[in-house]
Every structure is written in C-alpha cells, then in structure tokens.
C-alpha cells in the first residue's frame, strides 16, 4: 500500500504541472477506494503500476510538436535579434565541432573501421625476433615458416607474402606492356592468401593451389583501383592477357573495391611459386611475411605462446641458424595501424580539448545572454510558464545554435578531411578509408547533442531561475554574484586546457625544428633520382644489367652542369635494404650480425656527396672477376672497428656456400641518411654492381641544374639507351627529405593549429568574462572611486581578480600538460616530456594573453565616471 502510493507520488512529477494536483488526487483517491486493497495488497500495487504510464502519456500529449516549432522559430528570432553574439557562438562551435569531426573521421577510417577481411579479429600477423640483431618484428625464413606451419596447434591456416625490411610488403615493380610502358607494383602471395583472409573476388576467381605450380603461375588478380584506372573497368577483363616485363600473364580475377592489404598502393597480386617443401632447410635469409587464421576458440595469447615454444624447439634443433631466433604474433589491425594509433588518438584528444574550450566559451556567451533576458524570463514565469518550460525554451535556443554550429562544422570537417588526406604522410595506413560517412555523420550529430546540453544546460537553469520579484526589483546590482563563479570556473578550465595544448604545440614544434635542423649529410638540394627495373628477358645475361647502369651513369656524368651520377640499389631515406649475416676475416671470435649492404655503380658515392674518410671509392677496376671490394660507412667503423684501420680488412657474408669470396674494404665514407631524417644510421657497406648484379636500381644525379632540367636529362639518357625501359619514382631528393618529415610536419601543423585556436578562444573567453563583470560592477567601481580609490587601484583590482583565475588555470594546466606530454613522449624528437623551455614559453604566452585580454576592460573600469554612475 505504501509502495503503491509512493509509485503514484513519484510518477506525479512526470505529469505536466498544471494537471499534477488533480492527477495525484484522482490516483491516490482511487487507490484508497479500490476494494479489497487491504486484504490483497498486490492488487493495489498492480493498480499503481499503471500510474507512470498515464503520467508519461500526459507528458507526451503536452509536448506538442507545434510548440516545438514555435520554440525553434523563437530561437531563430533570438539569433536574428543579436546576430553578433549568435555568429560568435555558432562560429566557435563550428570550429570546435568541425575540427573534432575531421579528426574523428580520420581516426574512424584508420583505426576503428573493421578491416575488409572475414572475421578480422581472428587474423594474426606472424614475425621473427632476435635480440642478437635487435630484430623486433623481422621477416621470416621460409624453413622456419614451414616448421611453424607444420607443428603449430593454433592456426587453421597460414598464408605468406614477400617482405621488405619495413612493415610494407615486398612489392615487385614491373613494366606494364603497351604503347606507353608504365610502372606497376604487385605483391607475390601464397595461393591460399585470399582464403586465409576470407576475401572473395569481385569478378573472376581468387588463387587456387595449382596457380602456384611453375608453368601455370602467370596469373594475376587486379586491384579494383588498377582495374578501373588501367583497364577502364573492363567487365570482360577476366582471362585477358597482360604483359608484364615482357612476359604474358592472364588476369583471373579482380579484388573487391574495399580490399586493401598493404600500406603501399598495390596494383595486382600474383601467386608465389616458392615451394616451402623444397626450401624446408632454408632458415636464412628471412624474406617472408605471414598471416594466420586462428582456430576457433584459440586466443592470441595462446597462439603466441604456441609459436614461441615452437621457436625454442627450432633453436635447439638448428643452432647454426636459429640461435636466439624467437617467434611472435599480433592482431592484424595492430600490424597495419599499430604505429599510427597513438599519434591519432593524441590528435583526437587535442581536438577534444579545443571543442571543450569552444563549448566553455559559448556557455559563457549564452549565460550572458540568459542573464540579459532575466526580465523576459520573469515575465514568462509570471504569466504561467513552468520552470521546465523555460529550461526547454532556452535549451532549444542552445540547440539552434549548436545545430547551426554542427552543420557549419560538418562543412569544415569535409574540407579538413580533404586537406588531411592531401598532406598526410603516405605512411599513414588505410587513408583511402577516410571519408565523411554515416558513422561520421552520426558522430557529428552526437557532438551536436552533447554541445547543446553542454552550452545550454547551465544558462538554461540559471535563466529559468529568474522570478518576477528579482526582475522587477533589480537593476544591475543583483545579477553579478550569481553566476560569476560559474563563469570564472569555465574560464579557468579554458586556460588550463589551453596550457595543455600550447605546451603540446611548443613541444611538437620544437621537435619538428630539431628534425629540420639536422644536416642530412648529403647535398639534397642538388640531387634528383629515378628508378629503373630492367626486364629479365633482355637483361638476364651476366654483365647486361651493370653495363646498362654504368653506361647511364657515364652518359649522365657527361652532361653539362652534372657534378656526378651513379646508381644504387637503394637511395637515402628509402628505408628498405638487404641485410646479411657477416664475418670479419681476422676476428674468428666475432659473432655475425646482420649487415646492410647495397650495390652501387662507379660515381654513385660521388653523386651522393658523402665525404671520403679513408681509402677510395669504386672505380672501373672494380669489375666482375676483379678482387671483391666494399666501401663501408662511418657507422660500420664506429661499431665494429672503432679506433682501428678499416681499409684493407676483409669481410664475408652469406656464409652458406663453400666458396664465399672475402670482400676487402677499400674505403670508408661518411653516413648517408637511411630510414628517416633523425633516425639512427646503421652500419652499412656498398659493393660494386659489376661484381654482384641487380636489375632494379635507382639512378642518382647531382648537378647544378634546376631539378626539372636534371630530371629531363635523366629521362633523355634512359630513353636513349633503351626506349622500352620505364623510369619511375622520379623525384628530387629534397622532396624525399620533405616526405620523410611529413609525419612530424603534420603533427606540428595540427597540434600548432589546435593550440592557436585554443589560445584565441581562451583570450576571447577571458575578455568576455572580464568585460561582462566590469559592466556589471560599474556601480561598485563608481562608489570605490567616489570613496577615494585611485583609478590605478581599480585597474589593479580588476586585473588581479582575473589574473587569479588565469593563474589557477595555468597551475592546473601545467599538471595536465605534464601528464599529456608523458603520453606523447615517444612522438617527440630531441625534446623531453619535461622540456622546461616549452612550459615556460607556454605559460608566458598564456600570461601575456591573459593580461592582454583583460587590459581593455580593466582600463574601462578605472575610467568609470563616479558622478554619472551615482546619478543613474
């Protein structure tokens, strides 16, 4: 009985207030009159359970959509009446919501959208580890992969593809036949690759085991992009022949449009003819990457433990090759986006701070507006509007502002995403998946709802608190104190968050500046390059490939303005390189480490512009048949022969064969940048191309010519020697340097931009609150002045009060910034998380901004005319 009455009373609060008294009387009355209630209490309870439904029905009925439209119209009229204020609010929110939505769409596309494979959570990437060589996620030797495949208990299937030293797959560059030779890139994969990923062909078929049989292996699966761009989305493409490097391949299928596997653009996939059974004892070198599908019910941890144990077994069985060789695995999405996750989430956090600051500012604006309208609200209340009705009115006005802001923000976001994609570093995976899609739209409308409540609720509650007595009896006297603390708190929070962003931006910018100030070690401004891959069919004979590159280098060097020219297997900043285990001849105790090595023609080291430290560079004497020679870099000497004479020492690598010829170090040169600007340089040696041929090389030209002219010269020379050979990846080295800095640059731009906006918003916030407080307190200042206060005293009073808020905000901000900097530490270069310069710079900036923002209002306060005030 008591419970039943309680339910009715509680429900009565839902009932519109004009009906509430009657409603309660009826329900409670009927409850008491219900027959048999005393003897059968559940009956009364059952009766009472209907009360909330009735109450909700009445509430719903009172919420008439016509009224909503009237409220909306009224909201729009309010905007028209104070266009300046509304525009400021809408623009502020639009910037906040737009930036947040843009970053969210990147985060969603890159990190959150499921990968386009069947059940991607049960796919794992496998890799090898070896502390001896500092390998943390190395490619896999075929013999080891086969052992894992045969002995594991965790995978239902394992597929592999060819690797490079980086996370990118080992794409092969081939020349597409036709009237205009074009460079295309394909990935060699095992025939079960698409089965393991669970991807079906959009047309045609995917690979089957017989495709891997030599003789039947010249088949291709095209990427959707390649099929559209190169074949005009030909619906009859399946079974058509395609000429690659002079060989005829047959197209068997086209991958679905959303399918992506690699970080780099892949035009097609071809079956690998590698028969793991035939290479089962090949446990070096390491050149495969593998993807496995977990068996149902097997967790990633179990699978990891499984192959780690397997690797231990292999270490015992094959001590010669597998010493300390470990195995590990991780979720496939981590493999693709793992390195991008932290920066992106930090950007999202940074932009959320901007949104928060924007909301705080708009809340302040709306609060000021609500207080201006106290008398309006009081009249409404006096005429019978309930408090809920007033809150609703003010919330709807907030919704109108937030809605306009979100709509405008969506436009900003769309433009922002375009910009981001254009300027983003190519190494951000899955950028193609970034777009404004329904999920992003949902996010934006969610933001709108949150900002509505955030900016509308506090002003609505304060505004609706008004009552007639206050409004009619008040002048400016009574309205300051009420909301001053709310507004001060908001400004303090704004300052704190602005400190976080400005400290973050200063650190990012300093880190970027540190990267920019690094001397790349080579004269990049005068260098251009282009890559050539010679077809096997015409350059398969020994000497043909090296003859081509030596000839090209010689002809290029003969050009006017050219300082030097040459070719190498990899150029600076390309990252990838071949490595081998190596031995030093006069050091039998030396354990072989992995050593980077690359082929180079004569003239390459001169074109590269590295300093010759000892010995000589390559000459035409370093030809096939002559004693093998290498040129080492400085890092090599520093690490393996510190303080010793390197020239004349002899190395061997690839120690499998019985007649491995030792290679003599003939020279030492200074380091070239390898993976990225600012990244540590690994020991590396160059060997003459003539002594170990490669068909794919990059030509490098150092000249005093403008880049365009030098590139033209490069194209002309290659065409002259062999018109059927395509030159690709043509660019200037300064572009390559700039690309290498793309990630820190975009970080500096983004965080710097956010911090700039935050600072601006914080200044506006401080100014707004101070200006408003000064206006509201004019009378007080007048009295102070009349009582003998100096104008300077009033000036200082205002300044002191506002700087106190700024000061508290700064203290809180420093604490928050220290936490944030720790989280971002790994993204920084040459700057530590405790970098005092960044903190001091940020605090100084905020302090100046704070003083600048309240200087005007403070001066206004000190110029109050006491006489005028007293009379008013």
């Amino acid at each position, binding site marked *: 009985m008591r419970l039943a009455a309680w339910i009715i009373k509680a429900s009565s609060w839902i009932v519109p207030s004009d009906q509430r008294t*009657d409603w309660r*009387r009826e329900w409670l*009355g*009927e409850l008491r*009159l219900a027959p048999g209630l005393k003897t059968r209490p559940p009956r009364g309870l*059952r009766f009472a359970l*209907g009360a*909330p*439904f*009735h109450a909700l029905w009445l509430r719903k009925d009172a919420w008439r959509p016509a009224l909503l439209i009237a409220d909306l119209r009224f909201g729009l009229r309010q905007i028209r009446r104070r266009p300046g204020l509304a525009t400021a609010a809408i623009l502020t929110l639009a910037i906040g919501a737009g930036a947040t939505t843009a970053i969210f769409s990147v985060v969603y596309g890159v990190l959150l959208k499921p990968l386009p494979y069947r059940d991607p959570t049960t796919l794992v990437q496998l890799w090898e580890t070896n502390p001896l060589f500092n390998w943390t996620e190395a490619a896999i030797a075929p013999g080891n992969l086969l052992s894992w495949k045969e002995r594991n208990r965790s995978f239902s299937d394992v597929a592999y593809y060819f690797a490079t030293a980086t996370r990118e797959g080992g794409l092969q560059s081939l020349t597409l036949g036709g009237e205009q030779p074009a460079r295309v890139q394909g990935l060699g994969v095992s025939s079960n690759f698409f089965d393991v990923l669970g991807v079906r062909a959009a047309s045609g078929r995917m690979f089957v085991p017989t495709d891997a049989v030599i003789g039947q292996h010249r088949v291709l699966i095209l990427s959707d992009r390649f099929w559209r761009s190169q074949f005009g989305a030909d619906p009859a493409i399946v079974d058509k022949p395609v000429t690659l490097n002079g060989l005829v391949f047959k197209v068997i299928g086209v991958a679905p449009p959303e399918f992506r596997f690699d970080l780099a653009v892949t035009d097609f996939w071809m079956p690998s003819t590698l028969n793991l059974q035939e290479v089962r004892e090949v446990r070096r070198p390491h050149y495969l990457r593998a993807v496995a599908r977990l068996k149902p019910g097997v967790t990633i941890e179990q699978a990891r433990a499984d192959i780690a144990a397997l690797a231990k077994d292999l270490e015992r069985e094959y001590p010669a090759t597998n010493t300390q060789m470990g195995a590990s695995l991780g979720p496939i999405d981590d493999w693709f986006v793992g390195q991008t996750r932290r920066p992106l989430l930090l950007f999202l956090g940074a932009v959320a701070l901007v949104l928060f600051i924007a909301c705080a500012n708009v809340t302040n604006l709306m609060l000021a507006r609500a207080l201006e309208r106290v008398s309006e609200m009081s009249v409404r209340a006096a005429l019978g509007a309930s408090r809920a009705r007033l809150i609703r009115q003010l919330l709807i006005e907030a919704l109108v502002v937030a809605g306009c802001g979100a709509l405008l923000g969506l436009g900003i976001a769309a433009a922002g995403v375009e910009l981001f994609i254009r300027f983003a570093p190519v190494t951000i995976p899955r950028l193609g998946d970034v777009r404004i899609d329904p999920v992003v739209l949902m996010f934006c409308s969610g933001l709108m709802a949150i900002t509505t409540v955030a900016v509308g609720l506090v002003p609505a509650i304060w505004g609706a608190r008004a009552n007639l007595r206050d409004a009619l009896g008040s002048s400016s006297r009574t309205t300051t104190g009420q909301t001053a603390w709310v507004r001060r708190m908001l400004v303090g929070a704004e300052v704190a968050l602005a400190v976080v962003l400005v400290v973050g931006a200063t650190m990012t910018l300093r880190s970027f500046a540190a990267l920019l100030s690094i001397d790349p070690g080579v004269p990049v401004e005068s260098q251009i390059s282009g890559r050539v891959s010679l077809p096997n069919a015409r350059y398969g004979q020994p000497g043909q490939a090296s003859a081509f590159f030596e000839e090209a280098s010689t002809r290029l060097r003969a050009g006017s303005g050219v300082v030097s020219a040459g070719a190498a297997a990899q150029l600076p900043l390309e990252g990838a390189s071949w490595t081998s285990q190596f031995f030093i001849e006069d050091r039998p105790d030396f354990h072989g480490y992995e050593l980077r090595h690359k082929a180079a023609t004569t003239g390459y080291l001169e074109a590269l512009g590295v300093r010759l430290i000892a010995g000589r560079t390559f000459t035409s004497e370093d030809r096939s048949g002559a004693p093998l020679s290498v040129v080492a870099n400085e890092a090599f000497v520093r690490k393996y022969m510190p303080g010793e004479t390197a020239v004349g020492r002899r190395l061997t690598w690839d120690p499998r064969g019985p007649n491995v010829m030792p290679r003599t170090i003939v020279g030492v040169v200074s380091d070239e940048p390898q993976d990225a600007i600012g990244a540590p340089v690994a020991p590396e040696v160059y060997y003459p191309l003539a002594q170990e041929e490669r068909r794919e090389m990059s030509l490098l030209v150092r000249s005093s010519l403008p880049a365009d002219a030098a590139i033209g010269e490069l194209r002309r020379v290659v065409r002259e020697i062999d018109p059927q050979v395509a030159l690709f990846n043509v660019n200037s080295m300064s572009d390559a340097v700039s690309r290498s800095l793309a990630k820190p640059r975009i970080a500096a731009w983004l965080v710097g931009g956010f911090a700039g906006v935050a600072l601006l918003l914080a200044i506006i916030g401080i100014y707004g609150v101070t200006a408003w407080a000064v206006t509201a307190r004019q009378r007080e200042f007048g009295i102070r002045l009349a009582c003998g206060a100096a104008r300077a005293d009033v000036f200082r009073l205002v300044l002191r009060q506002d700087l106190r808020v700024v000061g508290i905000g700064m203290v809180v901000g420093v604490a928050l910034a220290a936490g944030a900097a720790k989280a971002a530490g790994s993204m920084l270069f040459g700057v530590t998380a405790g970098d005092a310069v960044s903190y001091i710079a940020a605090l100084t900036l905020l302090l100046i901004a704070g003083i600048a923002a309240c200087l005007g209002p403070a001066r206004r306060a000190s110029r109050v005319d006491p006489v005028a005030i007293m009379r008013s």
Partner: protein
Amino acid sequence: MARGMGMAAVRVLQAIAAGTEYGFDIITATGLPSGTVYPALSRHERDGYVKSSWEDPHKAHGERRPVRRYYRITAEGRRALAGVLDTLGPVTARRAKAARARS
C-alpha cells in the same frame, strides 16, 4: 473521430457509455490494466468524447472517503462509439462476448 481508436479505447468508452463512472470501476468493468485505462480516459477527454468532473466534496467528506473524479460520455462520444461499432461491429461483439465470458 474514430481514427486510431484502439480496441482498449473502444472498450473504455463502451464501459463509460454503459454507466461506469470512476477510474477503478472502469478497470474492473473492462478487465484492462490501469496503465491502459487511464491514458484512454485522458485521450477521450482530450478528444471531447468524455467529460470528467469532481464529485461534491461534501458528499465524499460525509462518507469519510476521498473525492472521486467521475467520467460521463458526451453526445460526440456516443456518435464516435456508434461509428466505431458500426465498422467493427461483428468483431467487437464477439470480443465483448468473449470478455464477458471471461469475467
């Protein structure tokens, strides 16, 4: 206006037309839960099919019980009910019979 009048609403209106006057009595007469009956009553009142009024407080006071709100069908309500029963006649009759058989 019979548009959208559900079966429960029809039964509530029928009960009032039959002379049942108070909320709890209508619940007993129709066998519907209170969460259905009361919204139907409010709806009929909004649509002008029923009129409610409070009984004389002196009378209730004399009987030492709270005042009750009683509901009367209007002429418009009768027309609406007749219209609904016309279109849904056979079904309603069967349902009403079934309801009677249950109670």
